[in-house]
């Protein structure tokens, strides 16, 4: 009997150490958690909890099996724990939606590396202005407010720029991810 995992990892995973696997998976785990709880601040907390649990359970992981699925499952439990701990003020999604979103991330998971490669190309395709805000936002990790102050824009204009940049990136990634 195996876990209900739909796809196995790329073969290179089997040669990596547990710590490397964990480090590699930080962005993916953050994405997974963020999708389910829609709260930036709590995402970091839950990611941290997930990392602690992963370390605790490291012995239970069999090298060569699907690390991504395993780690997602741990993250899923941490999200549930987080949901139990927080009152309605923080919980935006109901149970059914969380389940469904978790499913969506998992279904998307196998093509992650491909999309990451496509992204590297797509960043170069962005119009100058959009690339600039993406850089400020992600490389310099600046807030919308502070980017706005820098560029002399209204915050709303920066949000719009970021929104358009992301839309473009998504479309480009979609187009250039090998089928």
């Amino acid at each position, binding site marked *: 009997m195996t876990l209900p995992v739909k796809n196995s990892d790329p073969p290179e995973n089997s040669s990596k150490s547990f710590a490397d696997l964990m480090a590699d998976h*930080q962005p993916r785990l953050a994405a997974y958690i963020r999708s389910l709880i829609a709260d930036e601040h709590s995402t970091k907390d839950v990611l941290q909890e997930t990392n602690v649990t992963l370390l605790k359970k*490291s012995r*239970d992981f069999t090298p060569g099996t699907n690390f991504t699925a*395993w780690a997602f499952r741990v993250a899923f439990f941490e999200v549930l724990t987080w949901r139990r701990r927080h009152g309605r003020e923080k919980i935006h999604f109901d149970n059914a*939606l969380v389940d469904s979103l978790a499913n969506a991330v998992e279904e*998307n998971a196998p093509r992650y590396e491909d999309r990451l490669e496509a992204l*590297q190309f797509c960043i170069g395709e962005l119009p100058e202005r959009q690339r600039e805000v993406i850089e400020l936002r992600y*490389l310099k990790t600046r807030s919308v407010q502070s980017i706005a102050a820098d560029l002399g824009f209204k915050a709303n204009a920066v949000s719009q720029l970021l929104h358009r940049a992301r839309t473009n990136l998504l479309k480009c990634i979609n187009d250039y991810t090998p089928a």
Partner: protein
Amino acid sequence: MKPPSDPFEELTELASRLLDGELPEAGTKRLADLLDSLPGAQDRFVRMCELHAMLEGEPAAQSILSSDHLPENVVSLPGTKTLGAEAAPHEKRSPRQSLVRLSSVAALTAAALVFFSFRFGGPDPTQPNVGESDLAEPNPAEDVGKPPVSLVDAEDETSGTGISVEAEPAETSPDEEGPESQYERAVLASLGSGSQKRPPANFTGEPAPADGSIRFNRHIRPILSENCYACHGPDEASREADLRLDTLAGATGGESPVVVAGDAESSELIARITATDADDVMPPPESHKSLSPAQIELLSRWVSEGARWEDHWSFMPIANRLPEEAEGNAIDYFVDRTLERNGLGRSPEADRHTLVRRATLDLTGLPPTPEETAAFVGEEGEAAYENLIDDLMDRPSFGEHRARYWLDAARYGDTHGLHLDNYREIWPYRDWVVDAFNANKPFDEFTVEQLAGDLLPDATQEQQIATGFNRCNVTTSEGGAIEEEFLARYAVDRVSTTSTVWMGLTAGCAQCHDHKFDPITMKDFYSLYAFFNNTTQPGMDGNAKDSPPAIRAYDSPEQKSRSEDLKKRIEAAGKEAEKALKEASFEGVDLADVAPESYDHGAAEKAGDLGNRGAFSIDEPFTVAFRYKLPTEDGRTILAQRVDERERGWRVFWEDRGIIVELIESHPDKSLKRGVTRRFKAGSSGHFAVSYDGSGASDGITLYSAGDRLASRFVNRWFDSLENDFEVEGAKLRVGGKDPVSGLVPTVNEFVVYDRRLADREIKALSELTPALAIAKKAPEKRSDKEKAQLKLVLACHTEGPYRDAIASLAELQTELSRIESTTATTLVMSEKDETPKAHLLMRGEYEQKGDEVAPAFPAFLPEIDADLSMNRLGLARWLVHPDHPLTARVTVNRIWQELFGIGLVKTAEDFGTQGDNPSHPDLLDWLASTLIESGWDVKALYRTIMLSETYRQSSRLDEALAEHDPENRLLARGPRFRLDAEVIRDQALFASGLLDDTVGGPGVRPYQPAGIWEAVGYTNSNTQTFFQDYGGSAEHRRSLYSFWKRTAPPPNLALFDAPNRESCIMRRERTNTPLQALVLMNDPHFVRASRYLALRVLGEADARDERLDRMAELLRGRPLTDRERRVVVNSLDQFLNTYESDRAAAAELLTDDVNDSFSIRVGEPANVPELAAWTMVATQMLNLAEVINKN
């Protein structure tokens, strides 16, 4: 943000803003709606989150962003996918990539560190003696940068898995279990580590059952409950395929039963769980649940062996299954039986030092004194131990310690908890709980009085106070909150809390739908709800401390009867006055002659000066009345005052369109302000009066407008009494005049001041003096009847005669009554409407979606109890403590077992349902429960029984094999050892240093806490917005039980040690272990002060260095130092001495108390300053020892 017309566009934009942290609450709701309804939205959203994470955290993406020129291999990516695949970006790392990578590894390391300290950082729990490493660590003078994590003991009763941290994946276990099931076990175990988390569904110490011995409750139900009941359980609404597996009929009945007893082959259940096709397999992949091979094997065997069914264990009758041939202590008998089955044996008895400390901490929450320890250690024999237990249970501290656990369950707090989180006065209930435990009130009475004391015939004051249990829930008075909705919430809270505390049922789940796992239906829930749906309580608490229904909790029966007597006499005096008024005639009396001499300040430009009049001390009643015309613009101005240059005294002022009366003991912090806000407009005029009963309490101040009492409130301060006088010399009475700050000028006329508290009608007469004078000027025949009556009342009040005598004695009686009432605490109670209780089902738990009406009823799935019970709260309470009730006694003994052993026989003390833990010792649990019932619910006897067992007295020494086999000590092969609770740690430090003030009961006290904590969460118009510290030993050194509990910001040094916020019922505290705890123990002013006084104490109580060190060790952990330990302590003492000899300023600073200078230590001989400072540091070290902060 204008929503775009295209919903997909809108979704992307909302998600984008969410990722930037710029999305308001409403936007998130809209996002959730779109995700629910818009096809493809979820994929898009998930991709957006992924994109964000890539940009934020993928070294490859970051590298592209940081480079001006794109790397060649990426430029050529489109169309040449093989290149990208061959040169995976993470294999060619730029320096920047490595940097990013390093930082993520650093974050992981930090996570690992926390875990390491949690698991390994503390002293070896297998060593009862404190090793050198314990003592060598805490040396802040030497190594300030080092996180003192190892000071906090890492003994970890709750981690439960024994899995170590290893960066490399470990070897696959030789165990036959696959990795999935190992993982499953690990995840489940980790989920069980806190009260809010789910514990393992099955007891892992249980050996695999031999052939033919599979028990449904023990082996099968947990698997079904965990994996199947969410869709095939009691909840009809979410039931799939019309299949339920929680009843025998559901599993084996119907046309094509899924379970065919004895025939696994033809059982669809087995076919489905072993299916390989994703469409057929159960549980389905999307449920994120799966069965391990071992579980599948168990289920198959169970079916093959006949699929024998059992009802859920906790709903079956309690039975005493102690065999007749069992010898000795029954607890030990049951524990030994289980240990034998597991090939283990009991540990030897703990040494006498450890035992006396364990018993004393368990029964009183305080450590033994060295003298008590010595007496016990010196006296051998069983009798000594029995006497110790009995003696400890006779101390008032027994009830205090027990109450502390109960108040977690009762969710007791000193504020309302929601919105303003204003002060709530209900501490008499807390004191009732302490008294009840000390009086050994049988648990059935304890239950009945708390749930229904008000419904008992001729309910006493104490029985009414007890009903505070159901008034401890959080309440609100927020503008816009809907009364009906909140009343529904309060009732839901009461059902949930009552179900949890007495029955271990998570009934709250059935608020919106039938329970998913337990057979409790929505109808059951709302039938219980009906019991609580008949209260006279309003939905809004009015932000008042005494939100109705509330009673006065009189100090003594005499006071209560005096109060009742006064009320009767006041009624009689009122009637007498009426009679006198009827008979009196005031023919020929000219009102102008008898009217009181009043001071007019019509001119108003300069302040009036009435000399020394109006000088009152705190215990003198008085009345002040005047007619006013307010300035024509908004602002603040004094109407009358008598204050000195330091602003002590009293004043009446107008501000923020309100009139406020203030009695000022010391400016600006200590004053009583009472008033009515936003009722008196600029430019308005009228008559105002204030009377005071001389009680020093805010309730003793009464305000009047136009002769009628005003419902006034307490302004800006929640403490409601003054301690010291506010009378001042050298001040003058001032009436009206120009305000020096605002420049506003009010007009004040007819100012009168009396040195007594006037009766209401006297004040009415004062307010009507001017109209009465006008009436008096009219010819008698031109006066209307109403005018005649008005004039007569005014004349009567001001003319000597029987009426005035009667009214004066009435006023005197009222003043006395007021003084009693206003200094007597109020407390919130329950009271029942006259109607018959009933309720409606609330669909999906929504208050406005009413379904069928239901009458109060007991849950249908529990055995029917043959007793004549009333269908109200009283009946409910009696049903709960009926000897045939299967849950109450079990839940109660389990809770008590948990207090002593750190973990209950049922680990999930709050959940005895199918999702809860199975008991580790079912027969022991039942024996304890039946013993409790048979003893007449004798609680002290139960503690005595458990503590006299050898099981309780075992050494807590843990060897490696046992740690591996049973890390949580579920099999009880050793004694309890776990970190003390927050309150005990603080109380112990105060006690050992000799600072503890052991006064029992009274209002909550506010000892030191860091600045800004209340302010950070407080609404500006909350009366707990600002924290005011209490000063002096009687407030700063009380037991933590009495610390004021503001629910939105509980005392931080307790919260850090897992004290709950008391917003909801907690049956089981978490027990975490964080570096912050060590920082509190080393730096919190309470603990530094305790160290200082502990040092001072041992320096005074012993002469030689070694004696002093031994004394310190004995005070804290009950036994002197070993030679090995002494070397370590002496070494650090010498180091501290060196440090402080060369830095006397630092030494002096350490001896200065930052919080309250009166607790700074003044050393007569300057040479002694470094010595005392060094000893203080040693005391701090010892306070941090694992042996001190743990019960061993």
